């Protein structure tokens, strides 16, 4: 068995009388990517804040890198790197100065500082912009600098709180590549995200957080098996048509409000053709036709019976 990088048991936290975390348990094996998936307000950032010693839990225990987060906070801090939800870069300093600041505050020996900074700038493609103030950086560049700053001192366990929120698709892909490289180098990643595809792409294990409780945990494949899966959504113009269609697709689920029908399908051309043929046979035509792959909303609908939106 691989040793655990993070073990959490019965973690609880409330702000005033509002419970934010209500007994959370999980275990992250060293050298893997663990993703905490959930909508805004589910308690993701609170979990990160507690595990990174920024906040005290009301109950439960957690060990990070083998150290208890309350009894041995200093040892925890020495082992982790944290990238918060907003790019925490100093805008009045240049990219290089930001990294040098981290070197000066870390355990990196002063004589290695210049090399560490140059290597990180190079690795994150920031060498060209290194002399410019961070205030002139694009969102993607800021995020990269932010992550580079976290990596000064080679932390074993890296916390990334929504590292790609607000990034354009290309910067997102770059970030994913970087995260994979970190794990290949032996780091453990604790990642929070609101995007199912991101967790699916990166994580070895996913835990789904909803209103302070974990509603599901497992590998991406295990979780997807619990999902409604790919389906075709047909929208009709009248209730009578919806009724008729529901009769010919008995395994479909209907949404009376939207006059829509969700028909399970693998999304392949063959099954789509047969579906359309059956509609034709009964002289039915749908107003709108779309193939739908599961997203976070479906995960929540399947696991909790309410949508991610409603969880807010």
């Amino acid at each position, binding site marked *: 068995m691989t040793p655990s990088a993070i073990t959490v048991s019965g973690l609880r936290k409330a702000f005033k009388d509002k419970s934010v975390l209500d007994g959370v348990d999980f275990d992250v094996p060293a050298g893997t990517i663990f993703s905490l998936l959930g909508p805004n307000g589910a308690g993701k950032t609170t979990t990160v804040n507690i595990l990174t010693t920024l906040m005290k839990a009301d109950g439960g225990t957690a060990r990070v890198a083998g150290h208890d987060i309350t009894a041995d906070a200093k040892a925890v801090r020495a082992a982790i790197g*944290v990238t918060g939800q907003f790019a925490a870069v100093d805008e009045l300093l240049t990219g290089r100065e930001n990294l040098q600041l981290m070197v*000066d505050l870390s355990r990196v020996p002063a004589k290695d500082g210049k090399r560490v900074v140059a290597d990180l700038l190079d690795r994150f493609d920031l060498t060209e912009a290194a002399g410019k103030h961070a205030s002139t950086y694009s969102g993607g560049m800021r995020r990269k600098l932010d992550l580079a700053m976290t990596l000064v001192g080679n932390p074993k366990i890296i916390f990334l709180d929504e590292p790609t929120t607000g990034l354009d698709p290309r910067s997102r892909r770059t970030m994913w590549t970087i995260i994979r490289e970190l794990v290949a180098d032996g780091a453990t990643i604790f990642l929070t995200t609101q995007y199912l595809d991101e967790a699916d792409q990166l994580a070895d294990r996913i835990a789904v957080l909803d209103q302070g409780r974990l509603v599901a945990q497992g590998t991406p494949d295990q979780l997807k098996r619990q999902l409604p899966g790919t389906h075709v959504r047909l929208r009709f113009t009248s209730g009578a048509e919806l009724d008729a269609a529901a009769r010919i697709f008995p395994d479909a689920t209907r949404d009376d409000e939207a006059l829509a029908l969700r028909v399970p399908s693998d999304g392949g051309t063959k099954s789509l053709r047969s579906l359309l043929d059956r509609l034709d046979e009964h002289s039915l035509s749908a107003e709108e036709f779309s193939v739908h792959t599961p997203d976070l909303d479906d995960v929540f609908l399947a696991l909790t019976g309410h949508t991610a939106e409603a969880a807010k």
Partner: protein
Amino acid sequence: MSKSHSAVMLRRNVKHLTRNPTSVFNAVLMPVVMMLMFVYMLGDAFSVGVDYVDYATPGMLLMAVCYGLGAVATAVNSDMTKGIINRFKTMDVSGGAVLTGHVIASVLTNLIAIAAVLGVAFALGLSPNASFTDWLGVAGIVLLLSIAAAWFTIALGLFAKSPETAGMAVLPLVMLPFFSSALVPADKMGPGLKQFAEYQPFTSIIETLRGLLAGTPDSTDTITAIAWCVAIAVIGYVWARRSFTKRA
């Protein structure tokens, strides 16, 4: 650890001052403008028993401290709300190191503004009768006030929701000198305001400076002024350290 976190933090704050000269410029310009407006433009209209520039300079020194505070509160708050303080905390940088950097930067800005105000005051004919020890007293009181105001401002900055509200939160500190004996003696004010002006902390500080510059220091005023400064500094310090530890 060979590298001192406090020194690193201070260097960062000083770098901020040189990178963002408008904040220093504002902190210097406003008190100088006030000085010119009240002394050069309106000064002859006030009758306070002495040359108006001699009367107004102590209050202007106080304003030189206060006008720098808005930028300090905004800077501290943006460190907090943008996650920079959280980053420092997870790197085991102490609150003492982070906050002291801000305090020293604030005091440095104040000293520049004070030097400018004094320069203008002398140009407008300031003629103090202070001895060398009196001048040391002036320097001591101004420094004490500057440190106290910085800690209190930093506490406000850490507490405020956003950089904008942090800037607003120090506004009372900027306004308070107007309701003191800075520009006119408190006993010339209307009822209510007069009592307020007599007992608020800035009046005792201004009266102390006035006494020292005139070469006739008043020990009651001085003790009251020092007590106010120490109280403000302690409240600010305790509040700031608590906010730093608690807020994530």
